[in-house]
């Protein structure tokens, strides 16, 4: 990403044609920028980001299937993003402080230029958005109802009710759902924080389990136990993990 004579490559994502047009027209007033692609949904956006490696993303929030937040989570934090939304400012304030800017529809020239300036500064300074902060800001005070996973350019949506368990693997978590395992770049702690604690329990340093999948607990060796899931999977349960599990089960009665 060398600065100077090279043009700044922009990707526009919005499911509404007219909304894309407004952004494109504003971008085109800048000769140093070029629109490399327009995407009409989140899946296309994830693909286009991998393909075109744009310098800047204009991203609509309310889109079918994958929202703008989902896309941001999937493409990581390398590329600066400017959200474009008709939603109220309050919902978007959280992102502003994390250096991801937003534009409100109808989009005006002045606000557009300001957001662009900030994005350029960020590109020059190469400030990445801390991933953990993004995950936390995604749905304040609300637990995720599904998990988005990207495998190359393929995107999978896993509803939380279909997640059996998650296993920590270095910087990744392996998500077991419907007989398959999906790898996602996320720590198990941040995944745990995004899920409903009444449903998902950390039974071990490396394991997070869906309570409704646990069939029984068996003793295993001295001091430790095994959780047997409905799928047949056997997961280790640590001492503290067992205490957590027991507390939750008692609560449920």
């Amino acid at each position: 990403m060398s600065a100077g004579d090279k043009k700044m490559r922009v990707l526009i994502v919005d499911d509404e044609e007219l909304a894309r047009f407004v952004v494109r027209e504003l971008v085109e007033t800048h000769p140093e920028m070029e629109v490399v692609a327009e995407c009409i949904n989140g899946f296309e956006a994830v693909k286009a980001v991998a393909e075109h490696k744009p310098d800047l993303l204009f991203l609509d929030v309310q889109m079918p299937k994958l929202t703008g937040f989902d896309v941001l989570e999937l493409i990581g934090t390398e590329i600066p993003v400017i959200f474009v939304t008709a939603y109220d400012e309050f919902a978007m304030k959280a992102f502003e402080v994390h250096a991801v800017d937003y534009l409100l529809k109808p989009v005006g020239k002045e606000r557009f230029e300001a957001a662009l300036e900030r994005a350029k500064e960020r590109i020059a300074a190469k400030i990445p958005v801390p991933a953990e902060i993004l995950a936390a800001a995604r749905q304040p005070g609300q637990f995720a109802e599904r998990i988005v996973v990207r495998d190359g350019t393929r995107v999978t949506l896993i509803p939380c009710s279909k997640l059996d368990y998650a296993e920590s693997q270095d910087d990744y978590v392996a998500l077991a759902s419907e007989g398959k395992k999906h790898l996602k770049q996320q720590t198990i702690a941040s995944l745990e924080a995004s899920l409903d604690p009444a449903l998902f329990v950390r039974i071990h340093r490396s394991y997070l389990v869906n309570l409704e999948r646990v069939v029984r607990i068996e003793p295993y060796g001295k001091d430790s136990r095994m959780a047997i899931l409905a799928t047949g999977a056997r997961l280790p349960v640590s001492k503290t993990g067992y205490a957590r599990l027991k507390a939750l089960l008692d609560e449920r009665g």
Partner: protein
Amino acid sequence: MAKETLPRKLPQIVFRILWLPMGGALFFLLNTVGGMKALDSAVVAWPLCLFGQFMLVAAKYSCKSSPIERTNPGRLLATHMIASQIIAVLWYSLARTIVYMVSFGPQLKGLDERFSGRGPIVYVAGTVSYLLAVAYYYVIFARENAMKAEARVLETTMLARDAELKALKAQLNPHFLFNSLNSISALTSIDPGRARDMCVLLGDFLRTTLRVGEHPVIPFSEELGLLERFLSIEKVRFGTRLRTEEAIEEEARMCLLPPLLLQPLIENAVARGIANLPEGGTVRIEARCSNGRMFITIENTFDPDALPRKGNGMGLRNVRERLEARYGKEASLRVTNDGEKFEATVTLPAETEVAR
């Protein structure tokens, strides 16, 4: 509130001192008709009325169990005749007990003999007292009912007002406005003519919305016009993704309904249905009348995997509250979902003539 406490408590206060005049009347009867001595009459009359009045409370329950406006006259008469005879017998027994207990006093010796033969007077007094109590309770109940009815009317109007206000607020959905303005802004350079058309459509829609809000009910044809305008505006935004269908019976067009009743439903259909489908979908409006009832259905395709959005159900609750406020149990909103199609059906009385 303070104004209400006195009239509400008054009946109880009256009841508590009523035994004094009652005793006076009985004293008079025993003294003149019965020919008893003044002292003899007094020691029977007032204690009897003091204790006997508690028996009259029974009238409260017999009145409650046979409300005057909903019980047939024969039954009403029978109930109170039987009850009054029971009370009369009880009064008589009470009188005998009192006589028996006081007839040992120095001046009262032989009272039981002097009292014998005056039984019928006590008996009649008991009967009459009971019947007076019945009349009294019926008056009290009628008054309470009137007060309750008044409160209910007030509550209904307030609920209706509230619902109207909410409907108007929901009507001016800011996201709808912002998105429409963004579309217009795009059209100004692509196609200025269409931009102007869109401005006119939006202006028209807003003006009509404000105007119909002033009426308690409007013909369905007007409501339909608003829905169509709304869909035309959204079609500019969604392009070919938003498809619409209509099946309207001629008879239904004349029927009356509260204005903007269907607006939350059509907004849901677009925002929660079509907007979540990459390929778009269809919104269908159906209206028909049969057997004096009107049925309006708004149906849309939707993505079963879509996340439930914040504020889901707010619009539906608004529609339900408004129906309840105006029609009570006579109207309903039924929502069905077969995994692909979402259907909201409003059922209400098919009225065509109501003072507007």
